[in-house]
């Protein structure tokens, strides 16, 4: 269960279900929030072909340095206004968005990521890596300038 929780993001919004579904599927809305703080998502970089197999593409542009990050995906499920899923063409990660109406102006969005490489899903593996990282820092100190990043 814990393993799953790590790749689920839930947030409740004070807005109707249909509006939230539209926010997640219309460029005019996506451009306002898809890029998090410090990033913009120009409207002309967004492609939303809202049907199973259709393209979902966004390019986030970093405000400080102009570097660009393009996500190319294909929709795998399109069921307005409660369900949406897309498959990232680069990583194979499947993102499922579920919109649950909790009232006329209250909606929960759940983002669930699946088909994530096994090591990311496993709590053991994650814990293992945290431990490993502690050892890595020791290792880095021992290795000296070998592969140490300037901080």
């Amino acid at each position, binding site marked *: 269960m814990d393993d799953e929780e*790590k790749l689920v*993001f839930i*947030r409740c*919004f*004070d*807005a109707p279900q249909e*509006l939230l579904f539209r*926010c997640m599927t219309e460029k005019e*809305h996506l451009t*306002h*929030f*898809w*890029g*998090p*703080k410090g990033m913009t998502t120009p409207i002309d970089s967004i492609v939303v072909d809202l049907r199973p197999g259709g393209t979902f593409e966004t390019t986030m542009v970093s405000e400080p340095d102009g570097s660009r990050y393009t996500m190319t995906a294909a929709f795998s499920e399109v069921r307005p206004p409660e369900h949406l899923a897309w498959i990232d063409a*680069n*990583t*194979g990660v499947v993102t499922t968005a579920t919109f649950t109406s909790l009232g006329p102006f209250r909606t929960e*969005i759940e*983002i669930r*990521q699946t088909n994530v*490489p*096994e*090591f*990311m899903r496993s709590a053991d*593996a*994650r814990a*293992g*890596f945290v431990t*490993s*990282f502690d*050892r*890595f820092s020791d*290792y*880095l100190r*021992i290795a000296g300038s*070998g*592969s*140490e*990043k*300037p901080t």
Partner: protein
Amino acid sequence: MPTTVAVTDDELDATFSALADRTRRGILARLSEGDATVNELAAPYELTLPAVSKHLKVLEKSGLITRTRNAQFRPCHLEVDRLVVASEWIEKNRQLWSDRFDELEVHLRDLQQRSAGFAGERADG
């Protein structure tokens, strides 16, 4: 040794596939303590040397380890930067959705204010 690593999505895929195996993660943990030869790496596992070599090839291809070409026993070396990149991906992804939802909340407030404005105009006119 390179001090900065620019990693493409393809390389990241290779990294994740390499990390998806328990034995390979064990090998990496061992290498985090220092360079080791194939024989040393095989010791904790009930695996044949060819089987371990196969794992090492996957790790080498993914960029997670490098092997000395000229030394007799070709010790394996962990490329820490590459592993950190994979781990950071998870945390960044989590942060991305959190930030994105924050921005969505702001956007919804803007929309509501605007529609309240329109309603006001209509009532006025």
